[in-house]
């Protein structure tokens, strides 16, 4: 029996302790905002927060997530998250949208620890998240906009 705390709710799951957190979130709990993209922590589409830190759910065994607060895109609820999501909308970042949950989770994690990131900070924090529509220019702009709004 695995016990996971996801977005503030507790889930008792009869699953393989080695099951990656991604599939527990998607298939066992049924939250589909977190996406599968590569299964090897190469693309960032599955990014979630473990105790506020961005992790790749596709390579994180559920056993490692026990006892920690797991936050998915559905559970974002902070001033930083709201600034990021508003900026994403204002800047019309999304195209196909499949990677964007992961992008947003990485951006929120960045701004939560570094509210005024440098361009280098942005590139470093976001370089693990691939976007094949290449929305990168707007991702940068949205993060800068969110940072500005958090500074107000």
């Amino acid at each position: 029996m695995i016990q996971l705390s996801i977005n503030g709710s507790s889930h008792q799951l009869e699953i393989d302790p080695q099951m990656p957190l991604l599939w527990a979130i998607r298939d066992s709990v049924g939250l589909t905002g977190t996406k599968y993209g590569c299964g090897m922590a190469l693309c960032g589409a599955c990014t979630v927060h473990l105790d506020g830190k961005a992790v790749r759910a596709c390579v994180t065994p559920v056993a490692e997530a026990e006892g920690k607060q797991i936050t998915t895109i559905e559970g974002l609820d902070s001033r930083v998250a709201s600034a990021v999501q508003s900026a994403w909308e204002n800047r019309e970042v999304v195209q196909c949208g499949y990677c964007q949950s992961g992008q947003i989770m990485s951006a929120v994690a960045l701004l939560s620890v570094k509210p005024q990131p440098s361009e280098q900070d942005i590139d470093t924090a976001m370089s693990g998240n691939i976007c094949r529509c290449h929305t990168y220019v707007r991702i940068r702009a949205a993060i800068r906009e969110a940072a500005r709004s958090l500074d107000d």
Partner: protein
Amino acid sequence: MRQDGSVVISRRQFLLRSASVGAGLTLAVYLPACSREQEQPEAGPGKAGGENIATTRFEANAFVRIAADNRVTVIIKHLEMGQGTYTGLATLVAEELDAAWSQIHVEGAPANAKLYNNLFWGAVQGTGGSTAIANSFEQMRKAGAAARHMLVDAAAKKWSVPAIEIKVRDGVLRHESTGQQATFGDLADLAAAEPVPQEVFLKEVDEFRLIGTHVPRKDSGAKIDGTAIFTQDIKLPGLLTALVAHPPRFGARVESFDAGEAKKIEGVTDVVEIPSGVAVLARDFWSARKGRDALQVSWDENKAFKLGSDELMTQYKKLAASPGLSALSQGDAASALQAADTSLEASFEFPFLAHAAMEPMNCVMNLTRDGCEVWNGEQYQTPDQNAVARVLGILPEQVKINMLYAGGSFGRRANPQSDYLVETAHIVKAIGAKAPVKLVWTREDDMRAGYYRPMYFHQLKAGLDDSGAPIAWQHRIVGQSLMTGTDFEGVLVKDGVDVTSVEGASNMPYAIPNIAVELHSPDTAVPVQWWRSVGSTHTAFAVETFIDQLAVVAGKDPLEFRRSLLSDHPRHLGVLELAADKAGWGGTLPAGRGRGIAVHESFNSFVAEVAEVTVHDNKTFSVDRVVIAVDCGIAVNPDIIRAQMEGGMGFGLSAALSSEITLQEGRVVQSNFHDYQVLRIDQMPSVEVHIVKSVQPPTG
């Protein structure tokens, strides 16, 4: 994939006529009505919309529904895969309907080619070839205008006033002198009783209120809060997840398999052989994955393709030494090359490329006594209905398709063989349709399943006269045909020449008196498919790079050199000048930094780019800034066009810098993003996009 010439002409005539008429243009309405036999889409898992069916009062035609609550639903016949078509097509309707943008909702159309065919593809419903806006521009505006006409007629009757005195703005109808007004919702019941107009007025370009402005994307919110539903996200009662063990080489088959260990994995329900491999089904992805890992398969590789890409390229180079089929012959290139004062040769090798959309291919299918229901990022409805029906022994119209958002495609989801849908149908059939099935390809499956942008070899020769002007141009291209064997072969393969292999080369714009463009189309067993801008993905690079090399030999500035050869091509020149101007062409740059320029036409859109590139001390280089000018006719949504330019540039840069699929002894070497490198944010240049103002019909 290419738009039909007659349609283009009619659009040009349309604009000519509209320019001469002044106060709007009467156009006959040939809109399909909403089919009464067609089952209405109901709300349910993954439906793009459907929530207002119960309150719908007025279905003006197959594209517009107006509900009593004032909600206008626009039915979109094209796949939203990021390019913004849900927003663009809805804008066209809203414009002529004079609706408020906030009251517009969008819904993916069902598969029904009678109502929702791509007007450039005859009787085929599908999305591709940059046709979505171009083929729908008039159709969707007429759909909006027809609905508006019926609303106005209803108001005129109700208020006993002349229809011509009624103004419509932001979803409200008004009669000023009597002070009466009503919303669309108020009039929906009455409008439904009005006859469909035989002709409608469409707005003049200068009357547009939404077209040409930045209206927000309709798919943004759901893609930002995680609620957007992709194929991967579909849940159905009893749904089984299927992973397939595919053969290690193209053309190999299953010889035998041992499912013993796989079936011991908890959650695994079935292991079945299908034509494309062995499918492992389980109650969830992780169980299916473990099951497939435990599966033992022996493959019959006798007839498999066993060459490597190096060997293929050697063959291609040999072929390039002999003349190919002529794609364009103008003057006498061979003699002119002999006579030239200076000559130059260059060759280019292009690798196979995977589409590598962020959402690997997947498909959900449920077969019942009533037919087959499909959930898919559906790009190619009509061929997919036919292919799935053939496997299942049912009629194509019994294949009901729910078109969901696609997590990227770049052409991949319009597969000429409907490959992953056919695979899903075989799995459903093999388990006796006992449960709905979700086929999931892992990233590795997706990358190794083929249907790549073909590998190409280009050989170019050119000759300059003593003034440095080019007088001869010979371009030989070697690479697999995309269209042979597809539904488009009849139209796009002419005398053995696949026009998509040479597009961008055979219509190269530069004024050179002697030109020969030739093609070899060797057949190999590696499955290939259109990939983003199709032929231009390789021809533009080869032509533009070689033109630069000629400019260097001629001792001319690359912008000036192009300009001197483009006097008959005003739209090429227009974007070239704009990009050069905005980029500050000729201005000084820091040490180590230089500029390059290129111009290209693809799908009747014209694009020029100026790139600033820095060569670093360690001999690496980075692309730091790209200035883009685009002329795609009327810019329906300038911000989405900018986004497409930014993204398209990044996609091209990704391929140019790092992506490559290679084969060794027939096996695909790459498997995931560690060895199939794609552009990441730290490699993305800053981008500026400038759009040429135009009254030409929108292109793609």
